[in-house]
């Protein structure tokens, strides 16, 4: 992917998926129906997965599709169906005009502040180096090995803790979801 031809082709697709992600995200927040919203979110995630793959993060991209779009969002949809929330209510759940305007202003303010922060190089890490690092260039960055390395060495403890977290989450979900007989 390092040949001269790539930038145009690559750039086109990069912007394409970026715009898809952006558009479907906007559509996602504006849909009244939860089901529609969920589907637009899935769309966003697919677009993001494509971006990941384009950025040499193939493994993450696959995980994005499998875990996020495939598993998590399906659970969401499943719950929406289960609770029969598929039909938009007569009364919209969206806040009033002023709420939307202020929320929008907040969003813009947030973007502006992030932009200003990166321009002011407030966070030293945002002083971006001009050239990509070696690992990124040699094309091995996206494959599983470089990810698994630090994960099972440096971040072994964190990794093990995530397993505990997941266990806790599973138990918590079961306990919460169980229909308690003595519920009021």
């Amino acid at each position: 992917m390092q040949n001269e031809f790539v930038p145009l082709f690559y750039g086109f697709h990069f912007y394409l998926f970026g715009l898809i992600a952006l558009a479907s995200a906007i559509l996602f927040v504006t849909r009244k129906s939860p089901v529609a919203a969920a589907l637009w979110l899935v769309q966003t995630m697919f677009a993001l997965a494509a971006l990941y793959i384009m950025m040499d993060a193939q493994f993450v991209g696959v995980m994005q599709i499998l875990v996020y779009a495939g598993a998590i969002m399906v659970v969401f949809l499943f719950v929406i169906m289960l609770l029969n929330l598929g039909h938009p209510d007569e009364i919209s759940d969206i806040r009033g005009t002023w709420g939307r305007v202020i929320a929008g202003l907040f969003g813009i303010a947030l973007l502006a502040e992030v932009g200003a922060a990166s321009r002011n190089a407030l966070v030293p890490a945002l002083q971006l180096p001009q050239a990509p690092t070696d690992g990124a260039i040699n094309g091995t960055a996206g494959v599983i090995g470089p990810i698994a390395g630090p994960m099972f060495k440096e971040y072994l403890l964190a990794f093990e803790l995530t397993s505990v977290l997941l266990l806790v989450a599973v138990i918590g979900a079961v306990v919460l979801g169980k229909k308690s007989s003595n519920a009021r």
Partner: protein
Amino acid sequence: MMNAQLPETGHPLADTVARFVWLLPLLPLLGFVINGALALGAVAKIGPDDPSAGHDHHDAHDHGSGHDDHGHGHGHGHGHGDHHPVRHEYAGIVSLVGPGVLLATFGLAVAMFLAMRGVNMEEPFVLQLFRWMPVGDLKINAAFQLDQLSMVMVLIITGIGSLIHIFSVGYMQDDPGYPRYFAYLNLFVFFMLLLVLGANYPLMFVGWEGVGLCSYLLIGFWFSEEANANAGKKAFIVNRIGDFGFLVAMFMLFANVGTLDYANMAEAAQKLPMGGAVITAICLFFFLGCTGKSAQIPLYVWLPDAMAGPTPVSALIHAATMVTAGVYLIARSSILFSMAPVASLTVALVGGLTALFAATIGLKQWDIKKVLAYSTVSQLGYMFVGVGVGAYTAGVFHLMTHAFFKALLFLGSGSVIFAMHRAYHATHNHDDAQDMRNMGGLKKFMPVTWGLMWIATLAIAGIPPFAGFFSKDEILGTVFARANAGPLSTATLLGVPGHVVLLTVYVIGLASALLTAIYMTRMMMYTFHGPNRTGEAERSHLAEAPWIMTGPLVVLGLLSAFGGWLNLPELLPIGPIGTLEHWLEPVVGVATARMAGSGEHVAVDTEWVLIGVAVAIAVIGMSVAFARLKPAALVQKSASPASEGFAKVLEHKYYVDEFYDDAIVQPVKGISTTVLWKGVDAGIIDGLFVNGSAAFTRALGWMGAQLQTGQVGTYAWVLVIGVLALLGAFTSGR
């Protein structure tokens, strides 16, 4: 400590019996320990292992045991000295130990006295025992000082003390607290000896407070009556006001002179300017201590109440020994007082005023012991006049004669009360056994007591040749002499020239001598003369006390009659002249000379006139009393009308107690309760600050809780605002 002499260093007394001076206080202490253990052992009933286990078990136990404890509860229901027929189980051994240790101490004291007479001693004999409070440059040792002054005091204390102990064997014989009584009495003698034998002021202070403590315990001996317990407490607290003065005086002395030992006081005190503010303040603070212990204005109020204790206690503590500690203190500090004429004038003036003031109250008291109590206050005033004008020997002399005749008077009144009590007890009458209106005509029932008490009365009134005449006359004579010459006459007290003050004191002295003669005669007449008012049934039970009680009276009678020979004036060469004066010369000589100044003795004929005036006044007083008082017109206390006018004021002691109560005690309690406790403590500190800050926190918390709506949406909004603000702050900060 520089002058401190150990027995080895060749003091003339070092090889004599005087090296056992520590035994003097130790013996009574031993008596206290034994009697105290017996007292506690007799009444103690060890409780069960688990005190909170309930009372059921105890009930059965208590009824079964039949201990004499119930006697206690009942016995003191009405008045003191209620004579229970059962003698204490340890009465025998206590009667042996209690007076025994005192007699042994007296014997030892006499031996030391003889040893002391045998040597020529200018320096005091100081026996260092151990280091007591060695802190930095303050080096206070437990040390005893035996010199002429403390020897006299020791002899008075142990001598009179022995007699009173013996008397007590009879007086207290049926009291359930018999061993406790002797324990306290022994403890008192211990502290009193510590007071006079201590070689420095702090050690004297130990004795000073210790005797106060014993006085407290003995006044409240029959503690089941609130009045007695109150009187004891009052005595202690009022004394503490005086002790405050004593303490401050010691502080000033140490801060300015650097020592608290008597031994090098004379030389150390030279640092201070003569008559300066510091030495005057020191002396005045010491005198504040004296007004407490020796019951002078304004702190005399405790002594009359102290009569609530058993009568022998009144004789020993509140007449003969403890209350004279103030006089001893000034005699001991004569070096200091002679350097402060203003303080000395104050002493003399306060003493004179007290003498007069108390004498007037004594005129209208009905309780026989109260009369004697005010008489004691009055006579103590005399002693202070003596030591105030620098007649230290005369002051100590009067202290001694007063110890003789006042002990006799108290013990005599004790006999009377004993008899009255027995009579009332026999008929189950609950009338007042101490009120003179219930007495009268006791002469024919108790002739020995009557005779001896008349000797004492003549002595106190100042009729020659009884003891009191000599001592009183010497004091008055010196006052007159000092008014004419010497540093006192030239000093000024609050702008009033010294000689005016002293002449006033002289006149006051005469006036109170007159009053003394009157009230003493009144007491004798109402008690022993005229018709008997005790009651028909009781009369047959009135009788002289047993010999164990009258015996000591006889000895005291002899001393009261002939005690004056111990220090005869030059004018009356009927025996050795000025024995006591020569004896005390090494201790108070320098100070006396300084106070006398260059002034010559008063002319001989003037002196004769003075003596004549004094005697005439005493005779006039007694005659007036004889002429005006009508014992026959008296009726029993219960039938007596309340007095009117000034008599009522006198009978209520000028309402001084009431005044102190209203002006000091109640305000202090009131302010403490309402302002300090409820106001500052509970109101401001706890209310405003402590609970206030809690309320403030709670209010903040409530406000915070209002934000806590439970609406996730709201939280999200707040969160975003927070993030925006933080980011904004970081972005714009750069």
